[in-house]
């Protein structure tokens, strides 16, 4: 009994002590998160970017840490399925924009830059811009590349005992009726056209006739030109065994597929899929927007997003862990890359789309 009373007293004392400490803690400075340059940053940020898994991972890897750093900021995410849809939304805003920042495909952003939908910025506003690799800067100081990805060949590991090494696997009759293709205007279809054109020994800047003829040969083997729900799931669920896809998302889904989905960058090369981070002209929350762009170009954000969705950083000081580094596309020139200038892509997208419809799919 004595012992029990003593324990009770001790507990009461401890409770008071904890309460006193807690009250004292309220009056002193608590360990605050490391704050960025904009300590007094607050307000809204309207961001337009990709939907689905991209949104989920970007939210966790970049937006949430940014908001943690600036608790006064609220990020409103407007998700779009494609860069074209984003551009459409930005155009619809007219002279009174509500969007602050847009993350979109480089070729679409290029057209928006030309139309003055976005505005330039420098290292004065966005210090981390100084670390963006030269090849990923945009002329005129417009939004630089925020992340890099590349086109990959997706395959069913349960069907291929050895990973395919060439895009020519697509034409192997063994897989006829079990391959998926993504046609233009999707960037994947545009990229594949340029890759096949190069494989056929022609310069796609002047002609894609040989590429179209080769793709036309493939057409009867294609199960779907619009894989649903997407090119990754159709392989995971066994509907198809081969498809074109993006390296980043492919790596992400490969981890979730239980060893079913594999992907490779074939020996003939790939094409980059680059996303730029852009500041809207007359952005209503410009200060927050610049801080956000700066954060998205920081080593912490670039590392986190690379680990989450396997996009290669565009800055030179991200220092990825080895296990992540080997799964993102290399940007050091060690991979054969078909060069697709964004201005060129914007100028031919409709023509190439038209030729696919008439000659490849409709042929």
């Amino acid at each position, binding site marked *: 009994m004595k012992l029990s009373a003593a324990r009770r007293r001790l507990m009461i004392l401890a409770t008071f002590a904890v309460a006193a400490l807690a009250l004292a803690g309220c009056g002193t400075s608590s360990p605050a998160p490391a704050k960025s340059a904009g300590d007094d940053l607050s307000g809204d940020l309207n961001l337009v970017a990709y939907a689905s898994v991209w949104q989920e991972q970007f939210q966790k890897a970049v937006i949430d840490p940014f908001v943690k750093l600036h608790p006064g900021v609220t990020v409103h995410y407007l998700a779009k399925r494609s860069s074209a849809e984003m551009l*459409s939304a930005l155009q619809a805003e007219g002279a009174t924009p509500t969007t602050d920042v847009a993350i979109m495909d480089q070729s679409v952003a290029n057209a928006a830059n030309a139309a003055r939908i976005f505005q330039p910025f420098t290292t004065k506003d966005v210090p981390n811009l100084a670390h963006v690799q030269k090849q990923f800067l945009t002329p005129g100081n417009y939004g630089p590349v925020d992340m890099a990805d590349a086109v990959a060949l997706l395959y069913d590991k349960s069907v291929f005992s050895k990973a395919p090494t060439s895009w020519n696997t697509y034409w192997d009759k063994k897989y006829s009726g079990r391959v998926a293709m993504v046609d233009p205007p999707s960037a994947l279809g545009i990229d594949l056209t340029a890759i096949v054109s190069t494989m056929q020994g022609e310069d796609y800047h002047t002609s894609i006739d040989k590429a179209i003829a080769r793709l036309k040969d493939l057409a009867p083997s294609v199960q779907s*030109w*619009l894989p649903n729900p997407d090119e990754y799931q159709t392989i995971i669920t066994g509907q198809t065994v081969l498809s074109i896809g993006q390296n980043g998302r492919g790596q992400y889904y490969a981890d979730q597929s239980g060893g079913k989905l594999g992907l490779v960058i074939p020996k003939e090369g790939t094409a980059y899929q680059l996303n730029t981070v852009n500041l809207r002209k007359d952005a209503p929350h410009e200060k927050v927007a610049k801080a956000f762009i700066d954060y998205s170009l920081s080593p912490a954000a670039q590392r986190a997003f690379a680990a989450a969705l396997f996009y290669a950083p565009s800055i030179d000081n991200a220092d990825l862990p080895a296990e992540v580094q080997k799964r993102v596309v290399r940007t050091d020139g060690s991979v054969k890359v078909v060069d697709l200038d964004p201005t060129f892509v914007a100028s031919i997208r409709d023509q190439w789309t038209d030729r696919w419809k008439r000659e490849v799919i409709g042929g």
Partner: protein
Amino acid sequence: MSATTSIAVPRLPGADDLPPGHGVHEHRSRRRDRRTFWALAAPGLLGLAVTYLLPLLYMVRMAFNRGKPDGFIEQTFTLDTLIKPLTDSYYWKVTLDTFLMGLVVAAICVVISYPLALFLTRSTSRYKSLLIALAIAPLLTSAVVRTYGWMVILGGAGLVNSTLMHLGLVTVPLRLTNNMTGVVIGLVEIFMPYAILVMMSGFGRLDPRLEEAAASLGARPRAVFARITLPLTLPALLSAFLLIFVLSISSFITTNLLGGGAVHVLATEIYDQATGLLNWPFAAALSVILLVLFGVVIAIYQTVTRRLRLDA
């Protein structure tokens, strides 16, 4: 008195029996009725103008602009955008495919739904309400969900192909999706409840005593059907056909998902142009063509039904 009776108001038979001054009252009453009609209709008409007419005019105006390759719009007034699809054999083929798809889906839907609607209309079963609810129950599920269901059922490893292969009827899975076959199957299933509802509401004209009279005079069931049932139900059948045709040629989700990118009809082309290539003027031009197609079919429908009424 004479002044009141001289007012030129259409007179109903037997109007002479009405009390003096009735013409003036009738005129005032009509004016009041007209005012009431406009007052009641105004909110709806205004809503329709804002949500339908204005966007429609905007769309038509857009068709006279020019789309640029980079996704921007050149504000101008040109016929080029509208003329392009009319002078291009590819878009003629797309239009023809759209038209044929609408005809086939509407025809299959009507043929399958007709006996069901007839049965449900005539049923005296205590479960009639339940049967009607079952017939239209698919409408409770989203068309997207049903389309995905069909993708699973018709896929290479789906229920249909698995069964056919299990029975040894085929050795290689049939291609039932990512083509027009899949689209037609999906659309027929999705639009059938609409056909059933439209036909059931129109079958009220069918008086069973006429069929009984014909039968009692010695007409065989086939003759009763051909000479009594079908003619009397034809207007409802045509209404259902028109509705399904219009819904089919403007359907996008099912066509896109079950077509797998291989089925190119006006709705998918409009979507591609508007959201993929951001060529809004060309998308608007194709929409105008679709609208004209609707107009032609509705005109044909009205001519046919008018003739049917005259014959009747």
